[in-house]
């Protein structure tokens, strides 16, 4: 009976997840190896991050963070919640307080995704690392971001490791890559 409801409506998540998946698939075709794809995802993420931060600052009422710990909390509890609808936990602080982990129980980017066997080095969600790096650069923080664990590669959780490198002087321009 054609009058019955047509399945469930699509939310932004699915359009986003599918678009991201199509992008990664395309990059895997365009580049010869996984490392190149990872780099490209990071670069694209960076370009998104440097713009996303403005959207974030405009929509959240977050002020300037006093230290890296506060930054971590804002990223996990405000930013991830706002953009991906999840709240990772902040753990594994280094003794110096300059490095921490975000543990994601679920990752919206990987819904319905399975990595084919010949892409064992692909960091599927590497866009996120670029986004974080780019966004923080715009608020004068140079960071290194990487995936330490990935459910797509068989780990139990997804773990993003973030390390504070240095403060960026405000009069140095940062541009697109």
């Amino acid at each position, binding site marked *: 009976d*054609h009058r019955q409801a047509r399945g469930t409506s699509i939310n932004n998540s699915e359009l986003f997840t599918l678009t991201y998946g199509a992008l990664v698939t395309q990059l895997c075709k365009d580049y010869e190896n996984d490392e190149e794809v990872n780099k490209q995802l990071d670069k694209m993420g960076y370009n998104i991050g440097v713009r996303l931060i403005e959207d974030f600052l405009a929509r959240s009422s977050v002020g300037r963070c006093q230290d890296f710990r506060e930054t971590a909390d804002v990223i996990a509890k405000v930013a991830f919640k706002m953009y*991906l609808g999840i709240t990772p936990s902040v753990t594994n602080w280094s003794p110096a307080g300059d490095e921490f982990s975000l543990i994601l129980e679920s990752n919206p980017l990987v819904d319905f995704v399975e990595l084919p066997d010949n892409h064992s080095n692909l960091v599927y969600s590497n866009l996120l690392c670029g986004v974080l790096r780019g966004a923080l650069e715009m608020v004068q923080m140079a960071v290194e971001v990487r995936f330490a664990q990935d459910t797509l590669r068989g780990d139990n959780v997804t773990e993003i490791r973030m390390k504070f490198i240095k403060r960026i002087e405000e009069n140095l321009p940062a541009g697109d890559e």
Partner: protein
Amino acid sequence: MADEALFQFLHNEVIQYVYKSAENGEMENGRCVSKLEHLGFRVGQGLIERFTKDTSRFKDELDVMKFICKDYWTSVFKKQIDNLRTNHQGIYVLQDNKFRLLTQLSSGKQYLEHAPKYSCPVVFGVRLWPGARGTLQPGCEEHRHR
């Protein structure tokens, strides 16, 4: 649930990436089917699969068009089609006066030219019937025909 703004940023980035490839003059089989169209097509297929997996098949062409104009358009583009016309001979013109994927583009005209190439296949996704093709014109109309 992924935020609208995040999708818009990703969409823009995808267009920029593919635009750079297009500049290098890539064509396939002389058919000029761009990467952007393929991307959109793949996304559209996925969406249609999700959307229709629990439902009965479409009865006829009109059923399909109603689905596109209401349910599908609302889910993907956040509103219904503003106007639908047909010549009753297999050509349909769908008009959207405020096309979601174009209104956010702040870059110059170059992207306006390319962006619809993504959106169009997203609309037409999996071929709902063999031979269906469509074109998209900024000016926010789109044409669907056999």
